[in-house]
């Protein structure tokens, strides 16, 4: 049984799975339900100055019948009073002393930041998370992503918070920026204890083609919202890795963005996150999903011979390098398993029209391919033209049968050579330039 407990910049929790600051962490009731289900921490829905929400707040991207592959919201910070929220935070912390409760904050003046940080400490919070990420509504008032897009302002505000705080400070970053390491470095310089990312991405998920107005629809109008859910995971993983690998950031990371299950969580942790935060999957399925996350992560760690989740943190970070350092002499090609090929020929048309014309449709009898499923008289089967295959992976990606198309390593007999080395060798006359592909 692996040790799943983590410590994020001084905040400890029994497992790395936290509820992100969002609708699921809006009330004490939800917080209790989350901890009962097994979540290790909760980041309370952002507190700040009084706001009023609109009706109609969410929209989503469905894909081929799968609901909520991407999710979008235009909801603002909490619309409940600070008094009610802090009272519930206090009650919750008293009942769950070993679980992490972090209060998300978003306000404007120095005095206001001071007040909210102090009240969070008074309520017994384990830490605060500064919301510099929300890309809708609050940014129009100079808060949320408007802060996260300006490294100088980040430093100023974190500085104000550090003047009074006696608990750890997490800075939540917006991805709506060209280079995520800039705001991350600002957080580091100003003394924050951790960063969390990503917050949501500017988005419009869909246009209602009858009304010719996007969802969420608010009385004839809509507004740009914040995008999250499974579709954003690749963007979040990239940004987490960039921060983890940056020598000037060097802060613990709370990974956020499209995490649905233990595998997603393990990937974030392998790319440098200490823990993860989840929202959309809870909004889709409820708090109960954490059971599988705990069990799955634990089994994976046991299987991989890791005694604790901390051993996994950042393990895959060194494998990500600049393109120029990749081995040009590495070669793989596609291999079709005819015992499982069902004959959909999607690999053929994908390669023919979408890639490198390296698959032929052939007569299986004439080619000696033999029997297999999906054979009909006169029906062609795909065959890899090994000399033409560049090993791009496309066929194996479109193949609907698990394990039918594998990418096989080919021994080229050549020493590894990066683009950088290649440039040097050609410049020094050690080798001829590689002829262009036909």
């Amino acid at each position, binding site marked *: 049984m692996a040790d799943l407990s983590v410590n994020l910049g001084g905040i400890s929790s029994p497992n790395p799975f936290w509820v992100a600051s969002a609708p699921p962490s809006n009330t004490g009731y939800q917080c209790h339900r989350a901890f009962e289900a097994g979540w290790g921490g909760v980041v309370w829905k952002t507190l700040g100055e009084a706001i009023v929400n609109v009706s109609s707040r969410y929209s989503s991207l469905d894909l*081929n019948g799968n609901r909520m592959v991407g999710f979008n919201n235009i909801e603002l910070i909490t619309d409940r009073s600070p008094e009610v929220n802090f009272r519930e935070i206090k009650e919750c912390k008293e009942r769950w002393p070993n679980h992490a409760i972090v209060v998300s904050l978003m306000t404007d003046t120095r005095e206001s930041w001071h007040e909210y940080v102090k009240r969070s400490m008074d309520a017994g919070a384990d830490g605060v998370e500064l919301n510099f990420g929300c890309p809708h509504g609050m940014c129009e008032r100079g808060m949320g992503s408007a802060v996260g897009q300006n490294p100088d302002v980040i430093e100023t505000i974190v500085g104000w918070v550090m003047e009074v705080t006696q608990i750890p400070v997490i800075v939540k970053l917006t991805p709506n920026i060209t280079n995520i390491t800039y705001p991350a470095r600002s957080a580091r310089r100003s003394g924050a204890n951790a960063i969390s990312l990503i917050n949501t991405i500017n988005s419009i998920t869909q246009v209602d083609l009858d009304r010719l107005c996007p969802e969420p629809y608010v009385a004839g109008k809509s507004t740009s919202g914040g995008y999250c859910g499974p579709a954003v995971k690749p963007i979040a993983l990239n940004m987490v890795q960039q921060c983890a690998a940056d020598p000037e950031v060097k802060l613990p990371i709370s990974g956020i963005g499209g995490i649905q299950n233990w595998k997603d969580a393990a990937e974030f942790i392998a790319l440098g996150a200490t823990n993860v935060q989840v929202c959309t999957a809870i909004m889709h399925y409820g708090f109960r999903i954490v059971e599988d996350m705990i069990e799955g992560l634990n089994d994976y760690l046991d299987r991989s011979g890791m005694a604790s989740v901390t051993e996994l943190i950042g393990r895959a970070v060194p494998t990500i390098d600049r393109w120029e350092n990749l081995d040009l002499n590495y070669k793989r090609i596609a291999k079709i398993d005819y015992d499982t090929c*069902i004959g959909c020929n999607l690999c053929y048309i994908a390669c023919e029209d979408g890639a490198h014309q390296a698959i032929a449709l052939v007569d299986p009898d004439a080619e000696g391919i033999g029997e297999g499923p999906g054979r009909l008289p*006169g029906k*062609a089967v795909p065959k890899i033209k090994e000399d033409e295959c560049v090993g791009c992976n496309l066929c194996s990606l479109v193949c*609907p049968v698990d394990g039918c198309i594998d990418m096989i390593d080919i021994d080229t007999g050549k020493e590894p050579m990066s683009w950088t080395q290649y440039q040097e060798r050609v410049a020094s006359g050690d080798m001829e330039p590689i002829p262009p592909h036909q």
Partner: protein
Amino acid sequence: MEIRPILDPETATRNMAEIEPKYSPQEAVTEANRCLYCFDAPCIRACPTGIDIPAFIKKIATGNITGSARTILSANILGASCARVCPTSVLCEGACVLLDRDQQPIKIGRLQRYATDHVLDDNINLFSPPTKKSGKRVALIGGGPASLGCAAELALLGHEAVIFEKKPEAGGLNTYGIAYYKLTPEVSLKEVELVKQLGVEIRTGVEVGRDITIPELEKEFDALFLGVGLGSTLRLDIPGEELPEVVEALHFIDDIHTKPLHEVAVGKRVAVIGCGNTAIDAVTQAKRLGAAHATIIYRRGERDMPAYVYEYELAKQDGAEFVFYAIPEAVLERDGHVCGLRLVRTEMDAQRNLRVIPDSAFDFPCDMVIKALGQEKMTAMLDHLLPGLDLADNGTIRRDDQTGQTNIPHVFAGGDAANGGSEVVNAVGEGKKAARGMHRFFSQQEATGPIQWSRMGVVDAPPYGAGLDAPVRVQETATSFR
């Protein structure tokens, strides 16, 4: 005793309602999304009319239902009835690659029905008569699926088509002869309207040979298409066959299609002779119309029956009964009405030859006998109409498989009269082929697309760089190997 209708209108309507209701939009999209969108898909090849199935399914998934129906109906104008009556498990669905992965093919028939119902129910006008006319005219004899498929294709190719049908409505067996719970006459008649939308003229109540002669047609038209189907049910040739309660299966089914359901007379104990798909249609409908017992009498065993397995299953679910290895020797009579059958037992020897077991006769009580032994060929009628027409030994019309052309160059044929009795979709496919054969006959040119969209079916496509003006020729039978 004389037989009468049994059920009240409500019960009869409920019992005969369609067995597979239409998909809801969400059901359709969910099922459509399962489709892999295969390239050069096996389902297309398995369809005698070559519908681009992955394309129409993809269009359902994207919400382009009208486009989906256009894809279906421009390849098979009877796509709505075929969606209901095709033996999909041995055609398109039987070729679905997902059988090899999930054991569950895409429900192509039900999706096809969803798309075609959309345009038929909402009266969406998909077709209009082609503007470019060849000036060639074709007379089609018989108004069933073969002629409708042929006429639609002729219209798409720019030729004028006139159908001659002796019944009051066109559609053939689709209108008059398929189990009511599978296909109602309304759907068939809407398809007839689609054919008319293409500019095809349909003259109903006109019998060729009686109301108009072949020479008269030959004067007026450039070619003839024989889509005459098959004739009466084969006779039992046993005593008692002339009793009023001994009926042909197709007459019984015709009654169901032309009378209110609660006015169709049916026995309390019905015996159906034969075990093909029409026999199943008859036995299940007898049961659904109130027969206490409806029994198939078949001279061979369960594994020999010509009916599809799923039809047999349906009959069993409907409570039909089966007597295997028995042949009727006589229809038994009381007071001028049927009171039973005298049956004799049969058995199969080691060579699977059937023989009657001596002294095995027994009486089977029933008050109605439905004959479903298959239909006669139209040999006499064809000999009379076209004395020079070459017929095969089994009485079917000899014709070229690919063009439908008979030994008389301007006479083409397709459907049951030519293939001896097959599915609706085969009749439509043969009608299409004959239309393309006539096109070649008129113009000495191949029909140009778009008829069949399977990419691998495109032959003689202009080479890369040849420009986009050159016509792309499309072959009916796709070939995989280039």
